[in-house]
């Protein structure tokens, strides 16, 4: 009988832990899974909740890169195949292959004016690799220009 009670206990403890973990995971995923927006999707759906972490992506519009402050902040426009655009601001070191006309994925949040402040930029990592989210967009303006 004792072995059976013990097994019951073990299952109860394991089930409780699993349930707690599942709840935690569910809550965490609801709050923290970053949705991905291209300018077109954003124009269709409107700006997501202000301050919520999201990803935006597309190409850096040629000629849009500026340094409004002392040079530590960069501001650029993200475009895709639609007329919509997103203005992104980022303070820090841009990835090595971040360039005008290249694909970029920015992680950060929108403010009330629709401006996107990125805390991280992902660019094409090398000649063979680019962020997965950008694949459906096809080749960018850089490819068609060259």
């Amino acid at each position, binding site marked *: 009988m004792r072995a059976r009670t013990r097994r019951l206990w073990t299952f109860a403890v394991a089930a409780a832990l699993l349930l707690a*973990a599942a709840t935690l*995971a569910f809550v965490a995923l609801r709050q923290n*899974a970053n*949705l991905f927006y291209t300018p077109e999707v954003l124009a269709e759906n409107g700006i997501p909740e202000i301050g919520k972490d999201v990803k935006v992506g597309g190409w850096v519009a040629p000629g849009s890169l500026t340094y409004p*402050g*002392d040079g530590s902040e960069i501001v650029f426009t993200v475009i895709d195949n639609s007329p919509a655009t997103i203005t992104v601001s980022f303070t820090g*070191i841009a990835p090595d292959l971040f360039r005008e006309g290249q694909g970029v994925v920015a992680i950060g949040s929108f403010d009330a004016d629709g401006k996107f402040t990125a805390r991280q930029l992902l660019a094409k990592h090398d000649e063979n690799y680019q962020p997965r989210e950008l694949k459906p967009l096809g080749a960018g303006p850089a490819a068609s220009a060259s």
Partner: protein
Amino acid sequence: MIEFGHLAAFLALAASLAQGVLGLTGARALAGRAAVVAFAVMALSFATLLVAFAQSDFSLALAANNSHTLKPMIYKLAGVWGNHEGSMALWCLVTLGFGAAGALWMRTGRDVFEARALGVQGWLATGALSYLLFASSPYLRLDPAPLQGAGLNPVLQDVALASHPPMLYLGYVGFSFVFALAAAGLIDGRIDRVWAKEARRWALAAFIPLTIGIALGSYWAYYELGWGGWWFWDPVENASLMPWLIGAALLHSVVVTEKRGSFAAWTALLAVLAFLFSIMGAFLVRSGVLTSVHAFAVDPKRGMLLLGGLVVYGGLALGLFALRAPKLEGGKPWQMLSREGALATNNVVLVVAALTVLLGTLFPLIAEATGRTISVGEPYFRLTFVPMLAVLLAVLPVVQAWTWGKADLSGVWKWAAGGVGLVAVFLLLGVSVWDIPLGAAFGLALALWLIFGALWEVRRRAVTLARVFRLPLRVWGMTLAHIGLGVFIMGAVVETTQRYEATLALPAGGSGTVAGWNITLNDVHAIEGPNWYADKAVLTARKGSIKAEMAPTKRYYPASRMPTTETAIHKTGAGDLYIALGDRRDVDGETRWVFRVYFNPLIDFVYLGVGLMALGAFFSLVPMRRRRTA
């Protein structure tokens, strides 16, 4: 030469096949010989790849795609495994190496069991070698041979990263032999104390290099990527963390099987899962289904084959487990509140933690199937993984004193009072004096609690001071590993919550202040290396009487048309001042250089802690061998 290596790999395949067949029929000596032969010919085969890379023989497609004549020799050699095909060759070599080591050093006194373990290992090697030879061959020639190679991905040209894949593979693939032992034990229907004693050694032999390999990769990411952090919850990092967590659970559960004969089925299951998680890691990373810097082989066919291997080996092993587990013998009786109960809880928490990591890693794929593109980042893992481990570690010092079978609970209230008191002190200190977040204060209390608990356990076991030095090495191993965990948590908590970062855009002669450090840019000039040229910034960092020259550089590798960041790190006792050089920006007609400056407090504790865990695992392994050779 390469044709010889190619042929040798086929011979290794034949020998592995023989090992698989002979082993399963129970011929211990013959299977052992086949294992040694297979390893020897594969080592020769791997050597031909090394020679081709050393001589820059670009008629070998692999060398042409991944090497360059101007590369320093060590990176020419490391280039062999810095790509998909070569790393699979390394995977095969390590699989066969563990088979040969098993053939030479298994000592259970059960010939048929050992033969079967070698047999299963032979089938694992057959699968790996077939994949190598028929789906990702590193032995292909190019005709005509190019005059120059394309160069290794320059971010990989680094000492820590040259040794990271072999270490990681020793760990991942080391679990293949643990898997083989579990499968053989299940075929026998005997997962008992003799089995556990053997399996524990091999699990440790895999766990140590896995730990070191993960630490090397993390250290590389810390100083080479220039992002200031050491763990990014990237799919590749998660892919290595999951087998590590399962391995850690296994090391705790196999002890119960060894000492008491209990948990037999559970231990066997973990032994199987540790390797399955390793293959799954290889699949996730290599198939290109997840965004990752390691996704060299963005080739769906290879991904499908790896997945197929996972399904076949996993299905067979789990099927065998389902058949045999109900028939395994139980051990000595125990109650929930006992050492067994404590270790069972440890195991459940570690496995559930691994599952939450798995969910976070796979969730983007699941969401993609429903048509949404999302990603899961650090906040998810901080909310799920961290609290689970915190609960586990909070009870560790209390329950490690519990005895087998049934614990004496008379002293528990003292422990509870001590623990609550410590947390209260830290919460008060943290909020009122240090001004750090509540979570960080709790984390620090937890780290000290763990270290104290580990030392207290030594005291409890030794009773008198003189006997402290006569404790078995195994006890010291456990103590070191637990202290290491405490040290790691201290470093991780302080670094992640107290890290300071800022961006400076400086003209030559300009200066800025970050975290109390005054940083002046003296000048930026061009330098040249063997296969790169670079911009090197020379900065002077001053804080009080401390003065440090720092020179972050940005290299450019013409062969692969890629820049890399070489950070400058100044170690103070309390942490690292860390500077990465960014791009040049022309602002208002003036040239400015962008710097990312971090102060990473107690970052060394993170690596010291992981190092102590590996050392602890090593101490736990050593005495077994000593007793055998004596």
